[in-house]
């Protein structure tokens, strides 16, 4: 039976119920790919917690869960680093020079999405640059 109808059915159902948009559930070469945009960081965390419950420590390697928090352009986003400041860089990449810092839990303005991993932001102090999107919600 397909992974989405058996092992990960609860996870797929939870993603649908939680309002994940652009949800795509596909199976290819015995790996299930779940892609979509979560309405909040909490939903994303809940889905990962459920995945961890179904497959402890993600050991099976039979699922790629790619559910990201959709950030609205022009909207405020919160810096959700574990505790440290978030580096603001000149370009989208860790090889780019650091041009500023955003504090843990600081609210910044999302100006645009550079790619799936990087967003262009501006702080209230006027610092502008690219940050790793995973640390925003």
């Amino acid at each position, binding site marked *: 039976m397909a992974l989405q109808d058996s092992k990960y059915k609860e996870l797929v159902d939870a993603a649908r119920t939680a309002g994940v948009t652009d949800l795509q559930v596909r199976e290819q070469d015995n790996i299930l790919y779940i892609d979509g945009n979560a309405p909040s960081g909490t939903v994303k965390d809940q889905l990962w917690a459920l995945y961890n419950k179904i497959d402890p420590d993600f050991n099976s*390697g039979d699922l790629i869960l790619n559910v990201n928090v959709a950030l609205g352009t022009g909207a405020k986003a919160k810096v959700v680093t*574990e505790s440290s400041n978030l580096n603001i860089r000149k370009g989208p990449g*860790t090889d780019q020079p650091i041009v500023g810092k955003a504090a843990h839990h600081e609210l910044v303005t999302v100006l645009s999405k550079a790619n799936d991993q990087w967003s262009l932001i501006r702080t209230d102090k006027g610092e502008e640059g690219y940050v790793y999107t995973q640390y925003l919600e």
Partner: protein
Amino acid sequence: MKQIKLTAWALVLLLGVQSTGCKSKDKKGADTTQTAPLPDTTMNNMPPPVQIAPDTALQTGLRDATKDYPGVQATVTNGEVTLSGAVTRDRLPNLMAAVSSLHPKSINKQQLIIK
């Protein structure tokens, strides 16, 4: 002679009528067939194939994704990401989420020690 001509015309007309009859039958058949090719419609509604990032893009993405995990190393071969080193259990979901968002084909973490 006139009678032969008339018979010939009658024959032509008759064949014409029969031919129209056949066409209409064919059309009916075509309508029936039009409802049949559901697989085509289904194909159009199928989601696009899974997007797997090229190895070069994965390598660049992994450099950024693992930057905040100093004990973790990542390599890529044909879309498969292999994670090794060590990570704490509480940070594992974030690491997996960061790697999963790069569009790898698969993630092999058998060599990754969970502390």
